[in-house]
């Protein structure tokens, strides 16, 4: 029995053709459609990132007293939590009148960094990532981003954390 013209066939018959020649076309067309919708999904993902950036609020940092000026000796270390409980930070007294503080979380895989007094740098023991004690920049190893810095302000005898840079 001769087949009716394609325009007269129902859609299901076209999409589930018994003809091998037609089936090849359907398979390829559906793959192309699937890939194109995937491309649309990727674009939607990028748009979502942009929209998320628009609605992101700048974090508010509370002022918190984290240490007293004389309580550490030069080269001494103090751990504290800032800006939230559980956000571990490390403070180092690098000179008589100089204090620096950074997030203790390595920017590679979040291991805790520690201060190496001999080499005067912060070190991540997990993958040997090293950070400058002066500005938190990466000296060596797999991390690509510097350690977030805790900005300190001295008020009399007290060292006060006022914000993080860059804002996490």
């Amino acid at each position: 029995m001769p087949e009716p013209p394609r325009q007269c066939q129902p859609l299901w018959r076209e999409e589930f053709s018994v003809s091998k020649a037609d089936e090849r076309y359907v398979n390829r067309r559906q793959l192309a459609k699937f890939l194109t919708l995937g491309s649309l999904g990727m674009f939607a993902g990028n748009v979502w990132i942009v929209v998320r950036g628009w609605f992101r609020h700048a974090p508010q940092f509370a002022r918190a007293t984290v240490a007293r000026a004389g309580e550490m000796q030069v080269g001494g270390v103090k751990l504290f939590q800032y800006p939230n409980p559980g956000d571990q930070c490390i403070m180092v007294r690098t000179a008589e009148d100089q204090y620096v503080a950074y997030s203790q979380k390595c920017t590679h895989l979040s291991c805790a960094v520690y201060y190496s007094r001999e080499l005067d740098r912060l070190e991540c023991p997990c993958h040997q990532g090293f950070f400058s004690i002066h500005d938190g920049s990466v000296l060596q190893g797999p991390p690509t981003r510097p350690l977030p810095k805790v900005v300190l302000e001295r008020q009399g005898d007290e060292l006060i954390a006022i914000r993080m840079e860059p804002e996490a």
Partner: protein
Amino acid sequence: MSRFIKPLQNRGLTAIDAVTALIVILLIVQMWMLSATLDIDLAGHTDAAVPAAIASGLLCACCFALYAFVRRIDRHARDE
């Protein structure tokens, strides 16, 4: 329509395969771009988000254009 593949249909299939390969390449670029933008965004930098979205939109438009081409070839070859 014959149940056998005609030469013109065969050429149509080859063209569709080539276009599909192009779409795959564009999709891989888009996937890389999305993962890189997400990585930068999670690091707290938002500068790259808008240019990446524009580039991704252009690639997406290219994919739709190629898909429209596939449909045209498909219709043309199957009507033969």
